[in-house]
């Protein structure tokens, strides 16, 4: 039965991708319906799979020595992430039926979305490193294709290619790691690797640890690879919600979580992970504060929250990071879809042109506020519980100054969230916009997500059991009940954090009185708008490569004499090499 569910979760979306593409763009309604049906089936299958989570290999397809056995293991971590991928996937698809109504090339759109969902499930359920990389790259293709969906828009195309290249560059870390693991352990099985990590020479293990960290950082848009995610916001909003908030960007965090037991003792690795996470958190939080594009704010916010998850892993608590991943997927998807509803209705992404949208779109306003409160980490909402768990873990497992930094970031989060909500939904309209009514399928999706943001934290008990030793043998995650969570969180550090968060929100409302301070921080604002130099770095890279390529073109002179000279010269060089080499 487990095998059937796994086959459905990967196979049905992939089959659906093919079918929706073949149906053709002339039958739009059919395409919408088919996409919804396929994604819902996958979602249902993933929920059905939850009770059957196990650490045994349930599928094994032998492929010969070089390519290993294609194995699938539905352990707790994998099942949890596949539920998120498929359920939020089907919500995004349902949202798309309204958002993408009337768009051209819908077949291509839905095909890549469904292809992505299947690939994401495959990524988290497989235990073969070759397949992890295989699905990793497939998600990269789908992300690229969907960001650049509007091929005529050069910004979208640039954003798509940038995302593809940056995540693939990081992917080389995973590629090299997977190959080296095979070379040293004789198998691609990641669980076998974790078990045998002690037998690998220390310098090789370090290479693997940092290689995987680079791959994870690139995929999850962490420092120093964070520049692709804001530009990826050219994608349609359901895609931003699904791929760039709830699923693909979590793949990096997933990789770190899974391999944590193997690498936790590598010198400086945990410190590096924590630094990467916290740097991303603070840089992105500042950049969110100065951005004017609604989706860019949310993108930076995603980078920042992912920074929290990475930080938690570095501090030693995989459970806290995954719990926050759970909360974040829900409230960030909610925020992006809400933003999508606003953008679709108003027609612009610039917050400076909005204002007072809450009067025209009350439902969207309320669900967006719920999402924002969860993001800011206010009590009762799921974001509060998971963020506090992370801060607890950071306090216990990492240096204090980093903990203080993360608390400050929590305050900044509250500040930029308040700014965002206020600029969009409250006050008076700053431009003369016309608000189209929000489609039914959009509302149908937003409400369950908002409810989930309110209550998902209560599932912490079953959640911890899902990730427990029964399914993840190397991770030592114990069952934590609700009462234990209360006990752990309702303490003094939490109170301090809450005060900082309240301060953040308060700062926004007092901004008129803080003119002086804001002016003083002008230089930081300027640096933040220039993304602290990272964009400049990217552009420099690209330009240098292109200039070298252009210069190299000169070697193709087109004159025969030069061509023959090249042949003669290589012969002479080789002879010299032979003579010198002895």
């Amino acid at each position, binding site marked *: 039965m487990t095998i059937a569910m796994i086959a459905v979760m990967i196979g049905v979306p992939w089959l659906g991708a093919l079918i929706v593409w073949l149906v053709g763009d002339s039958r739009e309604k059919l395409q919408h319906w088919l996409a919804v049906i396929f994604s819902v089936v996958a979602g249902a299958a993933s929920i059905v799979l939850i009770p059957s989570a196990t650490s045994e290999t349930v599928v094994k397809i032998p492929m010969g020595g070089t390519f290993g056995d294609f194995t699938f293991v539905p352990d707790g971590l994998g099942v949890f992430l596949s539920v998120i991928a498929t359920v939020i996937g089907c919500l995004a698809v349902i949202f798309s039926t309204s958002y993408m109504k009337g768009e051209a090339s819908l077949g291509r759109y839905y095909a890549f979305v469904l292809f992505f969902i299947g690939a994401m499930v495959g990524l988290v359920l497989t235990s073969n490193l070759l397949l992890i990389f295989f699905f990793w790259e497939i998600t990269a293709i789908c992300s690229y294709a969907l960001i650049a969906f509007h091929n005529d828009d050069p910004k979208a195309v640039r954003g798509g290619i940038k995302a593809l290249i940056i995540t693939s560059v990081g992917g080389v870390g995973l590629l090299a790691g997977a190959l080296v693991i095979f070379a040293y352990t004789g198998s691609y099985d990641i669980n076998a690797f974790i078990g045998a990590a002690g037998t690998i020479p220390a310098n090789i293990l370090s290479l693997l640890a940092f290689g995987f960290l680079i791959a994870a950082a690139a995929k999850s848009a962490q420092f120093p690879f964070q520049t692709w995610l804001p530009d990826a916001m050219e994608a349609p909003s359901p895609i931003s919600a699904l791929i760039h908030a709830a699923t693909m960007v979590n793949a990096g965090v997933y990789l770190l979580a899974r391999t944590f037991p193997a690498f936790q003792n590598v010198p400086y690795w945990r410190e590096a992970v924590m630094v990467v996470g916290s740097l991303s958190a603070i840089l992105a939080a500042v950049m969110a504060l100065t951005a004017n594009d609604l989706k860019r704010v949310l993108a930076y916010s995603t980078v920042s929250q992912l920074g929290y998850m990475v930080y938690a892993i570095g501090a030693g608590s995989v459970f806290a990071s995954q719990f926050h991943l759970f909360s974040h997927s829900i409230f960030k998807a909610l925020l992006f879809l809400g933003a999508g509803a606003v953008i679709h209705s108003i027609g612009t992404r610039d917050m400076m042109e909005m204002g007072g949208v809450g009067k025209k779109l009350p439902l969207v306003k309320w669900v967006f506020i719920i999402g924002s409160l969860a993001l800011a980490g206010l009590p009762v909402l799921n974001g509060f519980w998971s963020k506090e768990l992370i801060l607890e873990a950071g306090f216990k497992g990492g240096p204090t100054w980093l903990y203080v930094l993360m608390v400050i970031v929590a305050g900044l989060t509250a500040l930029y969230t308040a700014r965002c909500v206020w600029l969009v939904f409250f006050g008076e309209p700053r431009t003369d916009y016309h608000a189209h009514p929000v489609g039914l399928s959009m509302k149908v999706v937003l409400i369950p997500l908002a409810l989930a943001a309110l209550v998902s934290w209560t599932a912490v008990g079953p959640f911890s059991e899902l990730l427990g030793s029964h399914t993840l043998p190397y991770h030592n995650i114990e069952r934590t009940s609700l009462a234990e969570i209360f006990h752990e969180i309702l303490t003094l550090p939490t109170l301090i954090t809450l005060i900082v968060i309240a301060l953040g929100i308060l700062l926004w409302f007092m901004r008129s009185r803080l003119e002086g301070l804001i002016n003083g921080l002008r230089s930081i604002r300027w640096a933040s708008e220039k993304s602290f130099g990272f964009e400049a770095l990217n552009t420099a890279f690209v330009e240098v490569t292109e200039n070298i390529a252009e210069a190299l073109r000169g070697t193709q002179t*087109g004159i025969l*004499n030069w061509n023959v000279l090249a042949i003669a010269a290589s012969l002479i060089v080789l002879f010299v090499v032979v003579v010198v080499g002895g």
Partner: protein
Amino acid sequence: MNLPLPLIILITIFCLAGTGLYCLLITRNLIKVVIALQLMVKGAVLAFILAGNLNGQMNTAQTLALTVIVADTIVAVVGLALAVQIRLRTGSLDIKSLSSLKR
């Protein structure tokens, strides 16, 4: 000079191949290019004969040499045919005028 025969042949080979290569690097006329190629290959043919002499397999060497001459004549014919076409279509046999495909 009373040099041994193999050494004379070796020097001839180097002269032929060297001249051929040098012409290929210097010349601007297509016909001269084909001739230079022929020079190089004849050097190779001599090399075969020399090799046959040195290792005693003269029969094999002769067969090889003859075959090479035949094969290379075909290449020369094709080359000259192309040169004729180029002269017809572009009116010139100069290599410099044959550099429209570059970069």
